[in-house]
């Protein structure tokens, strides 16, 4: 039974999180020694994948230098990028594989760790069937590793249950874009953003979650562009918005349909574009008829005149771009939300031209590349559908197996955890995923983990989830293995190896190859280095939607990245997809999608009258496995705070610093609050990066979108009560204590 062994204190003493503030040897030591080399690579902490140069000395990353030539960010970095080097040489780093004991974890040999993992997985599969074992991957892995995880699950283990933490990220967008356009990628390169006349940013806290994109938005403003921000919170970019719409959590769909209603009512649609390039318009036009501004205002809490103005600004602009992120996507109707955004762009003809279109802002480090090549339960490399016989045949041939041996679609990430909970899945191998922090309803996740008969984890730090493991295989950080990632723009870029994994830790790819060999499938995993995986991936993706066939490492270096699809080595790549409004469907048409309204899976009522929404802060990345160990980033935002509007705070007499108990239909959580006017008075916000008694995801619910399978992180119902005084303060500048 995979309960956390030993005492929590002992585990924390041994494995952290400890805070690393300074490079190896301290600041003074560091400034007296020149680095051995500067390695041009990319930041690991979000989908922007900023170019950065890592300073390396004695096989450690000891600092950074901006990389101003890289076109996307031109040297700009957020604090995560600035401090990312402090994960190298971190005292919590796993230097050996670990075996669980009654008292905790003991270091072991690779032979024992790999041998035990393979023996246990085999036993479970022999006893309960192949699908009794599942694999979790992650969207911070390089594309080579993501590809390998998918192939490993299907070929080495023969299980259909392989999914990844990108399921918590932007799958709703992908699930909406694919039927609309035939591909799941931002249709525009970011260089289009400054060229728009109107930017509509909906459900995207750009300043904190995609900081570099801010500069693109400001450049648009500098050129006279207007900014519309839709968010229940007044986010940093809202400060410069020309129009701010404080949408009630979970009602974005009403707002977008209301905007389309106004566009059609006032004849502002682009008939020529609709007729030449789309299908399905009439049905969608009919569907928005009931969404008059007054009705929409009632539901969304946005004044009718503001909705009218937003619709007019967007439709009347010659060039307009709609940007969206998790705020639109993390809903049980996340796909409908994204489809409604697409419908608005299609109806106004803002699509397939310079400075016009819609785009998802992908969140995770390799959020885009990590979903394209086969660790999604329903996809094969090249963004191919696993149900498509032609796709199965192609991939099976590249892999050297028969299509019949290739398993079909399995469960998604949340569904896998539920199958573990009900005892259907008995064994789990996980990499790059910390579900105890990142999946909704953390209490349920913990129960599930405790029911696993075998749990193997590949990780570089002992994450909260890894503490439940039977075997931990010490893997590698992003800077320790070469590969590629695909950025939010759709630009494939080269991750260079800066250092070797320390101690007895190993490159992730070689761990999978060894496991496969011990499973008797070594012939399918003959790779000696990531480049060989990439060469196979090129073939596997060839002719698919995300076609990487024409991309080589050398081209990525020379051209500072290549946008897919890139079908041949003489193809320049495709920065803007669907040029001229031509989709990747066989008929070249873009398809309007119907977007029927659904209530949230956790509705607000008299007992739970307040909306709870969750999200990120600028100094932390995802489940915090890495960033909760970096001193400066922790100081900047040390623990989660409940953001509450003064009007709501007054109803139960709390002020900044007081402890507030937030109760949902799952459980309760007590945290300090910050009273701020930058949030709707019917809504509270808690960032989710923390574990245990600070974990916002203990409060969230497991309702998922029926198609994208994304959890509804952005809407839960809660009630609030005062719980005493704490020492927390409003955010201040960090650094003071470091002086």
């Amino acid at each position: 039974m995979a309960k956390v062994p030993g005492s929590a204190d002992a585990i924390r003493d041994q494995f952290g999180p400890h805070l690393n503030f300074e490079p190896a040897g301290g600041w003074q030591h560091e400034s007296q020694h020149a680095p051995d080399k500067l390695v041009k690579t990319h930041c690991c902490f979000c989908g922007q994948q900023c170019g950065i140069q890592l300073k390396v000395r004695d096989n450690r990353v000891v600092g950074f230098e901006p990389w101003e030539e890289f076109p996307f960010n031109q040297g700009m970095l957020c604090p995560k990028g600035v401090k990312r080097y402090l994960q190298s040489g971190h005292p919590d780093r796993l230097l050996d594989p670990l075996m669980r004991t009654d008292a905790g974890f003991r270091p072991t040999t690779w032979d024992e760790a790999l041998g035990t993992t393979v023996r246990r997985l085999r036993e479970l599969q022999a006893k309960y069937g192949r699908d009794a074992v599942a694999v979790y991957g992650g969207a911070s892995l390089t594309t080579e590793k993501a590809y390998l995880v998918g192939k490993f699950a299907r070929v080495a283990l023969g299980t259909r249950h392989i999914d990844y933490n990108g399921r918590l990220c932007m799958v709703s967008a992908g699930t909406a874009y694919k039927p609309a356009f035939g591909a799941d990628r931002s249709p525009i390169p970011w260089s289009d953003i400054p060229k728009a006349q109107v930017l509509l940013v909906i459900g995207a806290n750009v300043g904190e979650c995609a900081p570099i994109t801010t500069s693109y938005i400001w450049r648009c403003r500098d050129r006279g562009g207007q900014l519309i921000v839709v968010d229940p919170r007044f986010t940093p970019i809202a400060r410069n918005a020309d129009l701010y719409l404080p949408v009630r959590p979970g009602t974005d769909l009403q707002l977008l349909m209301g905007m389309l209603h106004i566009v059609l009512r006032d004849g502002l649609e682009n008939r020529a574009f609709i007729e030449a390039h789309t299908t399905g318009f009439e049905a969608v036009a009919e569907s928005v008829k009931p969404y008059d501004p007054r009705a929409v205002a009632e539901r969304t809490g946005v004044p009718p005149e503001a909705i009218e103005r937003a619709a007019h600004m967007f439709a009347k602009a010659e060039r307009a771009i709609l940007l969206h992120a998790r705020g639109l996507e993390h809903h049980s109707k996340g796909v409908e939300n994204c489809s409604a955004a697409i419908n608005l762009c299609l109806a106004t003809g803002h699509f397939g031209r310079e400075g016009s279109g819609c785009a998802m802002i992908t969140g995770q480090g390799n959020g885009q590349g990590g979903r394209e090549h086969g660790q999604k339960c329903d996809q094969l490399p090249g963004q191919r559908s696993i149900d498509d016989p032609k796709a199965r045949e192609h991939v099976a041939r590249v892999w050297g197996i028969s299509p019949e041996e290739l398993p079909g679609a399995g469960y998604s990430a949340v569904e896998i955890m539920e199958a573990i909970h009900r005892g259907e899945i008995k064994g789990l191998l996980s990499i790059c995923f910390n579900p105890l922090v990142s999946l909704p309803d953390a209490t349920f996740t913990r129960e599930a983990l405790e029911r696993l008969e075998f749990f193997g984890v590949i990780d570089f730090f002992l994450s909260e989830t890894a503490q439940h493991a039977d075997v931990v295989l010490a893997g590698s950080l992003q800077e320790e293995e070469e590969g590629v990632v695909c950025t939010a723009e759709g630009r494939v870029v080269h991750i260079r190896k800066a250092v070797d994994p320390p101690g007895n830790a190993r490159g992730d790819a070689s761990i999978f190859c060894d496991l496969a060999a011990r499973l008797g499938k070594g012939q399918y995993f003959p790779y000696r280095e990531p480049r060989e995986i990439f060469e196979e991936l090129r073939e596997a993706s060839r002719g698919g939607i995300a076609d990487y066939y024409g991309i080589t490492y050398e081209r990525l270096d020379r051209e500072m990245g290549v946008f897919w699809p890139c079908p041949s080595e003489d193809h320049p790549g495709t920065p803007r997809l669907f040029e001229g409004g031509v989709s990747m469907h066989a008929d070249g048409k873009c398809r309007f999608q119907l977007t029927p309204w659904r209530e949230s899976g956790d509705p607000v009522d008299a007992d739970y009258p307040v909306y709870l929404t969750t999200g990120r802060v600028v100094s932390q990345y995802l489940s915090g496995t890495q960033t909760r160990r970096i001193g400066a980033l922790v100081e900047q935002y040390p623990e989660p705070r409940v953001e509450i509007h003064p009007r709501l705070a007054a109803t139960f007499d709390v002020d900044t610093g007081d402890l507030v108990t937030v109760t949902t239909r799952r459980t309760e959580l007590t945290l300090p609050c910050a009273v701020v006017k930058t949030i709707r008075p019917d809504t509270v916000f808690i960032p989710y990066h923390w574990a245990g008694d600070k974990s916002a995801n203990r409060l969230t619910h497991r309702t998922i979108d029926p198609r994208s399978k994304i959890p509804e992180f952005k809407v839960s119902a809660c009630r609030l009560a005062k719980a005493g005084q704490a020492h927390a303060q409003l955010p201040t500048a960090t650094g003071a204590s470091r002086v």
Partner: protein
Amino acid sequence: MQFFVDPSRCIGCQSCLNACEECETHRGVSMINFDFVDRRESIATAAYVCFHCEDPTCAEVCPADAIKKGDDGIVQSALEPRCIGCANCVLACPFGIPKLHPKRELMMKCDMCYDRTSVGKKPMCATVCPSQALTFATPETIARERREVPTNTFQFGRETVKTKVFMMTPVGVDEVSIDVADYMWEARA
């Protein structure tokens, strides 16, 4: 190239503050002055570097003559052997820039990344700032690309201070509410 500060673009990410302490000459010490203006009332944040005054008050009030201004107009940090840690400069600077580092009994402040700017690089903070609220560029570039306009003349009571660093000022901006309730439909009912 000149330094331009535009607080209206600042997203409060503190990248500048974190990157400053990574500079070779003063690793571990950040010279950026960063603050939330009033987090309860607004999301507004402001990050400042030393303005490098034409007639630096900090230097004028220094009894040890430890603060020097170079021909390039950059007002240096206090010279280590001279500075007596009296904090006169800290109190006198109209912008509240210099900081006394008690452990080292030394005033330290932004020297515009002398090690970088003197070899043609941009200062660290202005390189990394994701919103380019801190920018190092030519005045022509700023005039061409920005909608805000630069000024380097500041009025403190009757005293006029001219600086090397420019501040961007908004054009034609009315009062803007930052209370979400003011934007809501219920708020009108």
